[in-house]
């Protein structure tokens, strides 16, 4: 086992992540505005921003889903209890004692077990809940029967708002976790350069050097 600087986030992943950051920010801002939490823009402007950003994010996710499936990257998100308890104990106790994070990245496991489980939950439940309710909401004109479907619209809106609160909770925790570990830069840099420290077995290192030049930074 040797620790090497390995490209863990390719160009598409980084583009996906940062575009998603911008779009989710616009969606949270305009969405809570539409819902009546602020009047920093007019209602029609916020609806416009919300719809455009939502369509952009869904197009991005069509590519992301395709990428997950075709490259096998979905494997990073398969739930595992292997090391999960250590990570939970780290954030609950050991972090206060100044201990090191127990998880080391592996080539086919670039997220720690708790992180992978959280992202899986976001990808399987939270995001689909907000897209599905959002699409049904957006196309209300297609299925509306006037007052007869008002109750249904209300249910759709409630699911949409509930998922939105869940996403805000995720963002707060996601941003806070950037401050853990050695430095903020350590967490953000891999998502900019693509490279992070990964523990490679000799076979993995030999394979990458032989077949995927540029994956390991010397």
């Amino acid at each position, binding site marked *: 086992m040797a620790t090497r600087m390995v490209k863990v986030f390719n160009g598409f992943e980084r583009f996906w992540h940062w575009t998603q950051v911008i779009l989710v920010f616009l969606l949270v801002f305009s969405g809570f505005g539409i819902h*009546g939490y602020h009047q920093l823009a007019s209602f029609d402007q916020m609806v416009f921003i919300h719809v455009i950003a939502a369509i952009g994010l869904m197009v991005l996710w069509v590519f992301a889903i395709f990428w997950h499936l075709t490259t096998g990257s979905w494997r990073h998100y398969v739930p595992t209890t292997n090391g999960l308890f250590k990570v939970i104990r780290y*954030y609950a106790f050991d972090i206060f004692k100044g201990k090191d994070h127990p998880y080391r990245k592996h080539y086919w496991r670039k997220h720690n077990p708790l992180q992978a489980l959280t992202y899986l939950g976001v990808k399987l439940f939270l995001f689909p809940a907000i897209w599905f309710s959002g699409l049904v909401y957006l196309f209300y004109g297609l299925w509306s029967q006037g007052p007869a479907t008002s109750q249904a619209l*209300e249910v759709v809106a409630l699911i949409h708002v509930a998922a939105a609160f869940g996403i805000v909770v995720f963002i707060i925790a996601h941003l806070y976790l950037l401050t853990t570990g050695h430095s903020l830069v350590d967490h953000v840099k891999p998502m900019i350069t693509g490279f992070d420290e990964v523990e490679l077995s000799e076979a993995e290192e030999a394979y990458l050097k032989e077949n995927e030049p540029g994956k390991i930074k010397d």
Partner: protein
Amino acid sequence: MVSPKEDALTCQQCHMKEGRMKDVDGVYIPGRDSNVWLERIGIFAVLATLLGVLGHGLIRVVMSARRKH
């Protein structure tokens, strides 16, 4: 008859609490309507998360300062 343009409405005249449609029941109007318990639980969850991470961060700072002594 078509109203003159100075009488045209903006979206938020209806899409707000206490707007022109405030007494109209039986329709869900975005911006006017919400479920009071969903809002309470949502705001509570967001504030609890904020306080949780601030508390967690504070303990980290205090414990780290103590270790240096």
